[in-house]
């Protein structure tokens, strides 16, 4: 996933400038070198992707799992899925709205932090960057538990703080019960985990903007907002495009952060996303066929975003 930044951030590295190798005519060697990796990826990523498509056309439950028999139902799972009120009123809005809001917050906050970092002295910048690395390094599992702990109903430190500000009543507030407050906590978690990537990438881009340009625009009397809109943003458009698309892909498939929150594992059906719904339908209800159909829907959604990403990349650099 690095290649766009390789052009944007490290213009010195241009993999495609070498002329064709004369040894390239020996056709067997590259394939021999590739074979082990392709075997692993083919067997554990591509083939399962095909299998999930096949499964989505079957009624696959515990009986089929044990006996190994297949029971084809055609598009039955998809009919059930698309006919489900849950999908349209709960799951799809949860997945899409959450992803859009989380991406917007991540990119905006990450950009603001990058702009701040660019204006700091090297020492302070080093300190803040280290803190950002610490946030980035926090594993999704432990990060989620910490946020859950902070927002624990009644006595969580964040709930107490909100109570002290008069925003909620700590005695009755349960942030995980309501859909909106559940996702507000999830968004906080996802932004905390996701903004370091945006901030550091945008910072790397900011540092490539020639100082003369900024100075000239100051001389011309442009204010900070005008400079961002007319100089920084247009120059870093490819960087922004890449961080936005990558964040979108990540936030669509957020699983751990939702599943580990109270009620996120299917107990509270109002907060299901496509990812958690697929998992719960498969492994809690043993309806692997329907779960597979939901997973196919999620994959299809992601494919659309991925195609956008690829079109973006291929304009940037020859592979």
């Amino acid at each position: 996933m690095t290649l766009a930044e390789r052009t944007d951030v490290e213009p010195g590295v241009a993999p495609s400038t070498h002329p064709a190798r004369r040894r390239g005519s020996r056709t067997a060697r590259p394939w021999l070198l590739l074979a082990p990796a392709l075997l692993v990826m083919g067997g554990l990523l591509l083939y399962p992707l095909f299998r999930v498509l096949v499964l989505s056309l079957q009624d696959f439950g515990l009986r089929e799992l044990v006996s190994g028999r297949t029971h084809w139902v055609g598009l039955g799972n998809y009919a059930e899925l698309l006919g489900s009120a849950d999908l349209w009123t709960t799951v799809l809005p949860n997945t899409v709205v959450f992803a859009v809001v989380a991406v917007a917050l991540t990119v905006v906050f990450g950009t603001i932090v990058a702009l701040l970092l660019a204006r700091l002295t090297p020492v302070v910048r080093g300190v803040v960057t280290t803190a950002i690395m610490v946030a980035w390094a926090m594993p999704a599992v432990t990060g989620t538990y910490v946020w859950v702990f902070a927002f624990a109903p009644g006595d969580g430190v964040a709930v107490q703080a909100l109570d002290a500000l008069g925003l909620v009543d700590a005695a009755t507030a349960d942030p995980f019960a309501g859909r909106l407050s559940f996702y507000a906590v999830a968004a906080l978690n996802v932004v905390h985990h996701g903004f370091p990537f945006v901030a550091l990438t945008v910072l790397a881009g900011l540092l490539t903007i020639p100082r003369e340009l900024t100075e000239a625009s100051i001389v011309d009397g442009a204010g900070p907002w005008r400079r961002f809109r007319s100089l920084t943003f247009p120059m870093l458009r490819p960087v922004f495009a890449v961080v936005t698309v990558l964040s979108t892909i990540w936030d669509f498939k957020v699983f751990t952060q939702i599943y580990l929150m109270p009620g996120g594992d299917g107990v509270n059906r109002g907060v299901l996303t496509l990812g958690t719904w697929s998992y719960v339908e498969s492994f809690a209800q043993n309806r692997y066929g329907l779960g597979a159909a939901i997973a196919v829907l999620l994959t299809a959604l992601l494919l659309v975003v991925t195609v956008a990403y690829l079109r973006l990349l291929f304009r940037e650099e020859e592979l």
Partner: protein
Amino acid sequence: MRAAGKGLGVAGVLGFTLFPVYLMVVTALNGEANAGSRTLWPADWTLKNFAYVVGEGGFGRYLSNSLLVALGTVLAGALLALLAAVAVSRFRFRFRTSVLVMVLIIQMVPVEALVIPLFIQARTLQMLDTLVGLAVVYLAFSLPFAIWTLRGFVAAVPVELEEAAYLDGASWGRMFRSVLLPLVAPGLVATSVFSFIVAWNEFIFALTFMSDDQNYTVAVGLRRFFGQHATDWGAVMAASTLITIPVMVFFVLAQKRLTDGLVAGAVKG
């Protein structure tokens, strides 16, 4: 005024980024956390939560399971990714672009889509509940990114160096060992750190594949401290700290390399 604004911004970013880590560590060290104490500054500082987690809690076992799986993933991943990266950046061959595009696209596939078929496959192959089964899956997950990153490192090694080795009479294998390998070592470090983190942090497959609690990895083992009605938060946070520390050390130590090579990349769970 401007300086004050900057100072405020710096304080805000530091507070937001460090708050979860601080809360985690402080609760892990809070002797009364299990008794319901929720505070940012404990009255009773202690290491007994850590002692409980590693001893009675059986977390040492999970740590060594996770370490084994992660090391397996890193070693196999580094080897396979390096070979593949050399193939795509040093040779021109038919379908080269198709291979690269596949490597890119495959990273976008959601794990939720893979967990169902892989669970059924692993069940048929009797690989469920084994650490090897888990390591093989993580290997597949970390490969696309590792190949993609290493490809840049290999391409950055001047071809002239390789040609000089051939002129000196080296075979391809000798050149690979003595010229290419040492020069892409920094790239191997970066991708190994990434593979380690993928394997160390992974949750959904570990949850699905492992049923015997002797085989739990850290991410799943944590759930042990959640009771039906009350959660042992001191223990949860002590165990969380143990999980988080190695990853943070890696990140902060490899900061320069990560920001150069991987900002670009995708270190995200």
